[in-house]
């Protein structure tokens, strides 16, 4: 185990790479790599919410899963409180599983339909030997109360609940082990509009009460803007821009972020009539043969010749605003 103290941030991801091996061709002899996460670095301070946005397939969920070590990263470091999680064996990782928890996107798929709510929330308590018997029962009812459900729900099965309520159960399960850090992987995208606000408000209240740190993954920029203090924008496995929320939305620098922002439909007819959406042409390139130069060059309106040749690195353009573009 390597102890390498980094500054005050709770989590620091450094040069994280997560490649998935694929066998193709006849006889599966050819090996190719899907570069899901390709050299991503960022840090999250204690008690803050870091938003990660991007289109589907950009690697934002893979980043989240790698941090809680559902995958073993191909290379790179994940410093949690100074300790590199990326190098830990499954056994060494064990105590950290309690500190890092995850809330999943689909509340219909992430709860076992054959377990009652008390089994679901109680499972992490049993695994970590946190409480037994009456104490366990009390804790489960307390957790249910925290997420706005009632004690009487404990003996029911997931199918008896609506989407929003199931997501609350998922949140209660994550909170059961008193985590410090929670990866929220699109926690509201499967919910109805009127329920989304309930869950967002609850996540914010829990953060205030319990001092939680969130990595908030979403494709809905307006929600990320609402909840995060800092935001990273991913494209094809790499971060293209990272800044404080206000800075990113006011002073958007990267052409991809600009296009992404202008594509978000605004719930205000006058404003949306005035905004001239800058519509991106084409589709995201394959993450297998990633382009040599800037990954966004093929869809970028400002791309010049050298964009296709050399990849820009993420650089600080002042006041902790990072951008990966040659022409900013």
């Amino acid at each position, binding site marked *: 185990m390597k102890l390498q103290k980094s500054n005050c941030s709770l989590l620091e991801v450094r040069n994280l790479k997560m490649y998935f091996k694929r066998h193709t061709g006849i006889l599966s002899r050819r090996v190719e790599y899907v570069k899901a996460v390709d050299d991503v670095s960022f840090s999250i301070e204690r008690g803050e919410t870091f938003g990660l946005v991007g*289109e*589907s397939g950009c690697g934002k969920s893979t980043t989240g899963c790698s941090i809680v070590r559902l995958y073993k990263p191909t290379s790179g470091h994940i410093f949690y409180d100074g300790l590199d999680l990326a190098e830990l064996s499954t056994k060494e990782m064990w105590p950290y599983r309690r500190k890092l928890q995850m809330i999943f996107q689909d509340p219909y798929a992430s709860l076992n339909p054959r377990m009652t709510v008390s089994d679901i929330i109680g499972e992490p308590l049993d695994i970590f030997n946190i409480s037994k018997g009456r104490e366990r029962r009390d804790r489960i009812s307390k957790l249910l109360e925290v997420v706005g459900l009632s004690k009487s729900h404990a003996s029911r099965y997931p199918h008896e609940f*609506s989407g*929003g*309520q199931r997501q609350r159960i998922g949140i209660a399960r994550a909170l059961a082990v008193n985590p410090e850090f929670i990866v929220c992987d699109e926690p509201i995208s499967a919910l*109805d*509009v*009127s*329920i*989304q*606000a*309930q869950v*967002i*408000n609850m996540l*914010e209240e829990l953060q205030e009460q319990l001092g939680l740190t969130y990595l908030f993954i979403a*494709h*809905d*920029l*307006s*929600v990320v*803007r*609402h909840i995060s203090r800092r935001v990273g924008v991913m494209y094809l496995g790499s971060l293209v821009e990272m800044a404080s*929320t*206000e800075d990113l*939305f*006011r002073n958007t620098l990267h052409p991809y972020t600009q*296009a*992404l922002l*202008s*594509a*978000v*439909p*605004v*719930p*205000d*007819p*006058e*404003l*949306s*009539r*005035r905004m001239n*959406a800058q*519509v*991106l*042409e084409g*589709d995201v390139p394959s993450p297998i043969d990633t382009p040599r130069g800037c990954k966004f060059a093929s869809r970028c309106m400002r791309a010049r010749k050298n964009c296709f040749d050399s990849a820009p690195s993420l650089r600080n353009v002042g006041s902790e605003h990072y951008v990966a573009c040659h022409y900013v």
Partner: protein
Amino acid sequence: MGDTLLQIHHLHTSFFTQLGEVKAIRDVSFRLDKGEILGIVGESGSGKSVTSLSIMKLLPYPGKIVSGEILLDGENLVSKSSRQMRRIHGDKIAMIFQDPMTSLNPLFSIGNQIVEAITEHQRISRRKAVEKAVDMLRIVGIPSPEKRIRSFPYEFSGGMRQRAMIAMALSCEPELLIADEPTTALDVTIQAQVLRLIKELNDSLGTATILITHNLGCAASTCDRILVMYGGQIMEEAPVDEIFYDPRHPYTMGLLHSIPKATAREAQERLVPILGTPPDMLHPPTGCPFYPRCVFAMKICASREVPEFVISDGHRAKCWLCHPEAPRIEKYEAQKGGVRHEAAKE
């Protein structure tokens, strides 16, 4: 506005399940003019998809239209047989479904499927139909359509599949296009492409469109008029600006306040959620379906069916607070202004 294309009068649609009758649509009436884009906004279970399936007469078993009229160009669709409806599908009314992955047949090429739709309704040679399919693919912005026409759905990305679906739907120049959550499965950048395409095609071909969505942002940028549905009923109907700037129904107000604002200073404000959960349609509440979640609920809301109140020409709402003798509630009056973002005021 122009001529009326579609008129729906007092439509009731139910699903006769083993547990009892689920009244998915209760007394829905609206009209659609030629060349107009009408948005239907609501949560899952609000009846917006069932409305469109009723118009198409594609209700899955055990769903049935109980009563009401659906007039397309004066012809009542309710009394049509499924054989007669086959002639109308694709020709007069076309539909785009939510999931472009599952609504194309994976065993046939894209071109094949578009050509099938054309030859089904028009007496033209196959070669002409292929030419037309290529044209349609070009219109929806698929690059090198002569080649892509031979591609299979798996070779297309999500956005391209949805474009192919739109090309197929528009290939017979329908008078009415129903788009049921056409962008829900797509990324924002692709969503913007598809919404722009729908709007452009509406401008150039004059196809009347019903856009069903749960995203108020999509509705704001695309539609001319909006229906807000809840619990199988139309809660409010108004031109797009009035829905956003002069809403009268507490549900519409609640929806507008539960989404994050678009401008910097307002974006971090705490959201005001609508408490509770949507109604169980097997046992819908009596009176107004929204009253258990409504912050302004009064005694009358629980007991008496709410009539429609006309606020102005083209603006109606189903809420007792719109009654001239309703009590004045400060908070309700305050929310009447709807949501106008700072940037829009400037």
